[in-house]
């Protein structure tokens, strides 16, 4: 019991995720500033922001639904933290693996977005409501290819468990190459997903989706900020676990490997903003709607066929 509590609250749960997400927020903001010719924030900046927000007055607007207004950010953060518990960190197995944890993680990752929508809704401010609806709409555009691309390797491995997938690719590393298209789609759509969590304007998370968070302040805003940061880490960790299942014997080395993998993915996500230059509008439109989704479908088909024929 005490151990479970430790897992949930300290490691790899709430505290650890919070800490690591602050580090990655710093990396992201710093990188962004450097790309803009600026110096950027100091290393403790995200921590100072969070502490400050936590100790500020929290205003709940009169028109807002008090209980839901306050509950939504907690649900969002809880869902993200819960998702993190099922992502492998120090070994190929996550903390509490079970048969279909991949599906569960994906569901958990959808909850924050629903919460952003609800946050806008319960703010009872017309624009926040419109912003919430748009957040939801936009989310689907990016999440469909993202989820399909994440499910393709699972189909090939023939299991819905993250540990199972990891174990499968550990045994048959050659099949990882088959999933390279899915990996690319994942990176691109995750970038879309995290960009919606404004990735492009370093600390403008608070103004997300045209004012969904406009009414939030103090502690509740801090919770949302932590949710956004954690979501980035969880998505990166999930992608790392499924597409780069490199594990060694030592737990400490595995943990270091985990950090490196997440760092690489965050770095790629941040760098892509700058280097995905040659995308013209028509290419982008085709890419999002006509290329990305069909490729992930094709990937799933290929994986099913390979699974059916070769691995029989």
């Amino acid at each position: 019991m005490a151990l479970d509590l430790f897992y949930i609250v300290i490691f790899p749960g709430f505290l650890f995720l919070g800490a690591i997400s602050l580090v990655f927020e710093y990396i992201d903001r710093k990188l962004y500033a450097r790309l803009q010719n600026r110096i950027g924030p100091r290393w403790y900046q995200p921590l100072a922001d969070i502490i400050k927000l936590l100790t500020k007055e929290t205003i709940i607007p009169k028109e807002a639904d008090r209980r839901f207004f306050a509950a939504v950010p907690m649900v969002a953060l809880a869902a993200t933290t819960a998702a993190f518990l099922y992502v492998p960190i120090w070994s190929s197995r996550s903390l509490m693996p079970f048969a279909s944890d991949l599906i569960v993680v994906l569901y958990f990752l959808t909850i924050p977005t629903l919460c952003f929508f609800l946050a806008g809704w319960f703010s009872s401010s017309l624009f926040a409501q419109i912003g919430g609806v748009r957040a939801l709409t936009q989310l689907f555009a990016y999440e469909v290819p993202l989820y399909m691309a994440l499910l393709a390797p699972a189909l090939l491995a023939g299991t819905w468990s993250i540990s199972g997938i990891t174990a499968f690719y550990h045994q048959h590393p050659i099949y990882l190459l088959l999933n390279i298209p899915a990996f690319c789609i994942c990176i691109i759509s995750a970038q879309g997903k995290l960009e919606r969590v404004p990735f492009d304007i370093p600390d403008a998370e608070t103004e997300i989706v045209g004012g969904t968070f406009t009414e939030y302040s103090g502690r509740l805003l801090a919770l949302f900020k932590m949710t956004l940061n954690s979501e980035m880490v969880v998505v990166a960790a999930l992608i790392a676990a499924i597409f780069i299942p490199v594990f060694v014997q030592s737990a400490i080395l595995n943990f270091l490997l985990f950090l490196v993998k997440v760092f690489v993915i965050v770095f790629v996500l941040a760098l892509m903003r700058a280097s995905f230059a040659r995308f013209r509008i028509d290419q982008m439109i085709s890419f999002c709607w006509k290329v990305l989704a069909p490729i992930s479908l094709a990937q799933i088909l290929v994986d099913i066929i390979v699974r059916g024929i070769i691995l029989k």
Partner: protein
Amino acid sequence: MSKIMVPLGPQHPALEEPESFNLLLEGERVAASQVCIGYNHRGMEKAAESRTYLQNVYLLERICGICSHSHSTCYVQTVEDLAGVEVPQRALYIRALIGELERIHSHMLWLGIAGHEIGFMTLFMYAWKDREIVMDILEMLTGNRINYGMNTLGGVRRDVTPEMADKIREAVGQLQERTEYYSRVILGEETVYLRLSGVGKLSKADALRFDTTGPVLRASGVGRDVRRDDPNGIYPNLDFQVITDDHEDVYGRTVVRVKELLESYKIIRQILDQLPDGPLTVKVPNRIPAGECISRYEAPRGEDIHYTRSNGTDKPDRVKVRAPTLANSAAIAHMLDGGYLADVPIVIAAIDPCFSCTDRMVRVTDANSGQAQSMDWESLRRYSAQWYRKQGMDFSRIPLR
């Protein structure tokens, strides 16, 4: 989808230029729009009547912080004309020099703001970084970064030394290089073209009909420029082109501004080469003989007009200011109609409405329930950026050197 009324604005600086817009939305499109201006009215015209001519130079300089030199130049021209004094050539050259530097600073600023409005933050940062080069030059010449206080009745207050001239030449060289780079990257970039072209369409006939001025008019293919048509000071001695463009939209306005930057560099080089020796000021009497005078000046945003009526005392009887944005305001409603809500920020920004970079509040009213909600400029901008990102247009992917 029901029609929604979106009042946009009103917080806006500058004497004549605060604006707000009532937009009637049908889904994503603007069905009708109405321009309301006059929010930050400070009553400067009345105040000018109780101040002396010299005091008014500094009051009117603060009509607008971006084109302060334009307003003060335009005003001192009227007073000098009424007093019948001949301003020394050297002073006229220095005035024109500051005027062109101000145009560079204003257009650079606009470029950054335009980047900001279309969700291209890197452009904003880059343009404003290069703008600092001009700000340094202006500070070196006048002692202040903005609101230079360079003009006085009968001349200018500070001289340009040969060392300063060398520094200006050097800075102009740097700026030219950067501007050519922007012109390649921005005007050549297809995403920018697709994002801006066809947005805020204003045909040549409409541009003339609504009496627009400045880059807005010139981007609709009308080559009207006070510097050439009704030149004041030393502009007849200079060789420059009036830039026009036939796109008739926001893209055209961007092209005009970027090309005008290059013309300004040309003008500055000529001014420095031609700069004559001589005194900086002549004496202007405190009491100005009775009379009236109207003067025009090509400010970065277009034609600026000052009218002064004197009555023989040391204070004017009436000072009338027509800032360029007021002339362009009437056309905005026309440009917005039928466009997308997501385009509203860039269309408004494209007339360069003496853009203060503060958030202007937007009130969203549901036509059915009458419920009103505030939406700030930032939210609208963000909404716009996302709307376009959904269409697959993302400027954050364009790398800048």
